[in-house]
């Protein structure tokens, strides 16, 4: 079933729509507009991520520790959502993790190279960051998730677990 294509197209259209809708006519700065778009898309991703992880882990035993959860995100979660595993996981063992995906599913259609590098991370990856943050939230971890692209279609997600 080719529904991943449907998701790709829907995601593209969603980003485009949110971007157009919140294009301010008042001459506000572009970075402020972008921040609004990012926050909306991230919020949408957050709730979907929560729902997805709930269904994925309903039959699983509980996780040993934080690293165990991150590995689950990198393998099972990433495979279901982005059709492959994370290529590289790094951590400082103090709550910061960097997840590297060398061929991120949502970027492969955009460009191979430096085009769109400006717009890509913030707005286009906002939804995906939300998915990760939502998934972690339902696993009991509050976090801040950001994404960075240096060369398409490879990107890095930085997850900083918030200690309460």
């Amino acid at each position: 079933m080719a529904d991943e294509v449907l998701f790709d197209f829907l995601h593209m259209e969603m980003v485009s729509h949110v971007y157009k809708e919140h294009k301010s006519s008042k001459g506000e700065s572009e970075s402020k507009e972008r921040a609004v778009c990012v926050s909306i898309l991230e919020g949408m991703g957050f709730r979907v991520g929560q729902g997805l992880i709930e269904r994925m882990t309903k039959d699983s035993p509980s996780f040993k520790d934080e690293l165990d959860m991150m590995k689950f995100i990198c393998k099972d979660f990433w495979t279901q959502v982005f059709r492959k595993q994370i290529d590289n996981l790094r951590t400082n063992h103090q709550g910061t993790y960097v997840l590297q995906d060398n061929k991120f599913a949502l970027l492969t259609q955009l460009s191979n190279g430096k085009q769109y590098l400006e717009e890509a991370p913030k707005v286009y990856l906002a939804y995906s960051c939300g998915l990760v943050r939502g998934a972690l939230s339902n696993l009991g971890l509050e976090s801040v998730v950001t994404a960075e692209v240096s060369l398409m279609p490879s990107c890095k997600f930085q997850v900083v677990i918030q200690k309460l």
Partner: protein
Amino acid sequence: MLFYHHGYASGACVCVCICCVFKSCCRLCLQNSELFTLTYGALVTQLCKDYENDEEVNKQLDKMGYNIGVRLIEDFLARSSVGRCQDFRETADVIAKVAFKMYLGVTPSVTNWSPAGDEFSLILESNPLVDFVELPDNHNALIYSNLLCGVLRGALEMVQMAVDVRFAQDTLRGDNVTELRMKFIKRIEENLPAGDE
């Protein structure tokens, strides 16, 4: 959370996949459609926040669906390698048996042909878009799955057919089935590039 109740949808995804020999693979395969379904729900929820009335949300969904449809058709033609349809009946069959099956994992039945053969219904026993969804009371005019109408309209326009698509029945609004009514309006002449006259 406007729309969701947490339950396990029955028949969420009918997927017969030859790779599903192992249970773990099957679990993934079965759940793939959830990302799309849940994302769609989040989108509709957001649109309801952005716009004051259901009519406007319906319009936006249709427009977004159209934008998706005009691109989806290329993907469809590449994947399915169906040739040009000879008539509207063939188009209906391809939509129901190939396209819907390919993208949504369901095969609607094609019925209720008009005498002139220019209008038909697609009947969906279950609509994959509405898994986990309940409409709250104050959204009576919302056509939740209206994206589908836009997608079909956009896709067919790219193959030179102007159609009108609307929901005649909707399980979310209490009907037994979901029914899409598709009407052929006219054939669109291919536009010659400027300067070719």
